[in-house]
């Protein structure tokens, strides 16, 4: 997690089962905090999409939807910034090995767009450890 910083006004550290409904209730709490801090609709949409994709990846791909496996969700929010860490118990993966879903040969695949969308809507996306942890950060637009 980022160094202790008095500018964080809200934080959350939870371990949840591999269940997307549970993950989304946590995400709803995060989004409410951003609304309270009057982040723009566009920024909130971007955080919503990126974090939802990251949670689904952790739950369905990382943990293979095994509810006995857990996802660690950590979030820090300040008026200007959000920092999220999502860690699954899976074997990890190499994000650089993902095919580009925007190329003609991959465009009509039904999946494979989550990481692209995370990178598009967040200012910083980093995969750590064996690829089973993702860090998402975003600075609020002025």
């Amino acid at each position: 997690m980022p160094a202790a910083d008095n500018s964080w006004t809200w934080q959350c550290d939870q371990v949840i089962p591999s269940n997307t409904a549970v993950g989304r209730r946590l995400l709803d709490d995060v989004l409410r905090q951003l609304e309270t801090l009057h982040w723009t609709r566009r920024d909130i949409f971007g955080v919503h999409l990126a974090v939802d994709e990251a949670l689904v990846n952790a739950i369905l791909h990382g943990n293979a939807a095994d509810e006995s496996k857990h996802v660690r969700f950590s979030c820090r929010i300040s008026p200007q910034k959000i920092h999220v860490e999502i860690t699954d118990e899976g074997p990890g993966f190499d994000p650089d090995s993902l095919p580009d879903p925007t190329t003609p040969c991959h465009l009509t695949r039904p999946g494979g767009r989550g990481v692209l969308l995370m990178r598009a809507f967040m200012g910083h996306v980093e995969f750590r450890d064996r690829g089973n942890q993702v860090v998402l950060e975003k600075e609020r637009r002025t």
Partner: protein
Amino acid sequence: MTAYHHLDVTDVGNVTVVRFRDHKIVEDVNIQELGQEMFRLIEADGRDRLLLDFALVDFLSSAALGKLITLDRKMKAHGGKLKLSNIRPEIYEVFAITKLNRLFDIRKDEADALAAF
């Protein structure tokens, strides 16, 4: 009369206008059900001109995009036409980032889309 849980279906001339009822198209179960309802329109009902109206949709996940891609494939296989309309800017940005705005015929509003069929 066919009951749809996730769609409002109306006919405007020879175009079937489908309005999504869900504001957020994100839950896996809902996406599966919604997909089945849309596929039924093509495969069981033989609709060959479909307009998807996103006026009430303020969020969708990449899984929903996947379902739309499958719908488009089915439509093309049946020789039909599919158009999308009333997509809010944040969601249109998702189509643009994923370059799916090149796959789908996206129109500003229903009138524009209907005129284009």
